[in-house]
């Protein structure tokens, strides 16, 4: 998929849970995307005049898309974190957001069954993967979602509508099982050691998923979150250390990596 750089139009912005938002962007000439790919969004709408602060675009997973003739609408689910996402959270319909994407190498669809483990904002990266796997073979993908509290979850209703097997864990027990989503993974892998694991979320969570999968001899792909300036391999800012030594670029060689290749202890 050849990425484009364009000014997208904000179609809708709505609250998603307690601290997150759903942003719908209309993009002319959007080429489509693969599950796990992302886009770079300007930190807030492009206003009536150029402002150089904050400067850098923010990487955001493409949650899903609706293609229409010529144009497409893509959805972004994001959590309000710092300045850029605070400004994005203040978008109004009709505002323009600069978008570069789709970018990166996404998830490789597994031949057999899959366990999708996502925590916090990582949930936004796995919906499309779940949708494609479920469409190919209903029930072949089991989705495990985790968050600190029910309000920190994103997109749960979409996963339910999708109909793929779904389990939820919250640390405070406000929804689903009380505890960590990695606990759900241990149980699920124990039941089905053949399944391939796909993880996205906080580094600690993904690292734990990698350990659990490795212990069971299961394959594990993880989608990393490193700070990025460009998103397409030129600033070299997003380097992730590899077990084999050296670095990979999260934006170009990832964001999805074979978990065994990553030197987890060296991540930011």
């Amino acid at each position, binding site marked *: 998929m050849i990425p484009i750089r364009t000014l997208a139009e904000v179609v809708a912005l709505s609250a998603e849970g307690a601290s997150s938002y759903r942003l719908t962007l209309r993009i002319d000439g959007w080429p489509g995307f693969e599950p796990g790919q992302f886009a770079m969004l300007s930190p807030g709408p492009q206003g009536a005049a150029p402002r150089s602060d904050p400067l850098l675009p923010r990487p955001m997973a493409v949650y899903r898309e609706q293609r229409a003739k010529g144009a497409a609408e893509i959805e972004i689910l994001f959590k309000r974190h710092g300045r850029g996402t605070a400004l994005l959270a203040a978008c109004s319909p009709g505002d323009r957001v600069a978008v570069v994407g789709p970018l990166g190498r996404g998830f490789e669809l597994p031949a057999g069954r899959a366990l999708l483990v996502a925590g916090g904002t990582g949930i936004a990266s796995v919906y499309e993967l779940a949708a494609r796997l479920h469409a190919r073979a209903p029930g072949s993908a089991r989705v495990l979602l985790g968050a600190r509290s029910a309000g920190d979850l994103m997109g749960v209703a979409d996963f339910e509508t999708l109909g793929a097997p779904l389990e939820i864990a919250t640390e405070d027990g406000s929804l689903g099982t009380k505890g960590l989503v990695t606990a759900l993974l241990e149980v699920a892998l124990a039941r089905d050691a053949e399944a391939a694991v796909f993880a996205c979320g906080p580094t600690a969570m993904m690292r734990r998923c990698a350990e659990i999968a490795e212990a069971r001899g299961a394959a594990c792909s993880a989608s990393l979150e490193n700070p990025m300036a460009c998103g397409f391999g*030129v600033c070299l800012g997003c380097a992730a250390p590899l077990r084999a030594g050296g670095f990979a670029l999260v934006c170009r060689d990832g964001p999805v990596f074979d978990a065994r290749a990553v030197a987890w202890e060296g991540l930011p």
Partner: protein
Amino acid sequence: MSATNARGGEICADVDLQVELAGIPLRNPVLTASGTFGYGTEFAPFLDLRRIGGFVAKSLTLEPRRGNPPPRIAEAPSGMLNAISLENVGVDAFVREKLPALPEGVVVIASIFETEIDRYAEVAKRLSGVSRVAGLELNASCPHVKSGGIEFGQNPAVLATLVRAVRRATTAPLLVKLSPNVTDIREMARVCEGEGADGLSLINSVQALEVDVERRRPVLSNVLGGLSGPAIRPIALRMVWQARSAVKLPICGMGGIASAEDAIKFLLCGATAVQVGTQNYLEPSAAGAVVDGIRAYCARHGVRRVADLVGALETKRP
């Protein structure tokens, strides 16, 4: 939309955008800066490389290098910090793999940096014969191990030795890219002129530090990094103007260029050409927009040749 004249310079609305930089004829005065444009091909989806004057490739070392551990970048007010260190594919892979991948007619300037003077010279030598390399940019902002980690470009004597050595190693057009972390940029400019450089590039990023107050740590693993982006533009303009007053060498100006207006400021201060850097990250097609904007400005102001803008800043009081 734009024809080309005898010498290949673009003409549009009667504006001649062609300039010559250190003996390198350029279609227009807009290049892109080393380290912000990869090896060129990464920008193919966003920009036709033949629309811009040319680009400076990521700085090359003798051997491939791996660079610093993350975090390597941090956001700053109207700018960013980076501490990528020496990461690059190495000079040989550049010549073997990167250059051939570029479309014909793209002007490529190779940037070199190293930790020792003789290694600098060796990199220059390996790039000299190469037909696709229009010129060399000597990045003097690299820490010199022998002089206790200060940058080559921060000590006039060290800089002189470096430029002399590289000058001996190559006959290619040689631009020396100066460090802004100095008391007097004019002194460094004169050193380069004295040692036979063909031109100057300035400025490199400004040494800076950003702090994470929650973790009480520097944001960058390297502690210090280089500040780039619009924040440093007024500093860069000052240094270009000062260097212009000190030497005859042509200057390639950069630092925070985000628009044609910004680029024109550098031309007026005495830069023969400019480089777009950090802006490429947020706007991969930026350099093309700068070219169009310069053309429009010239047309609007009745400037027939963009070269007429170079150094045209009027500093006498009205």
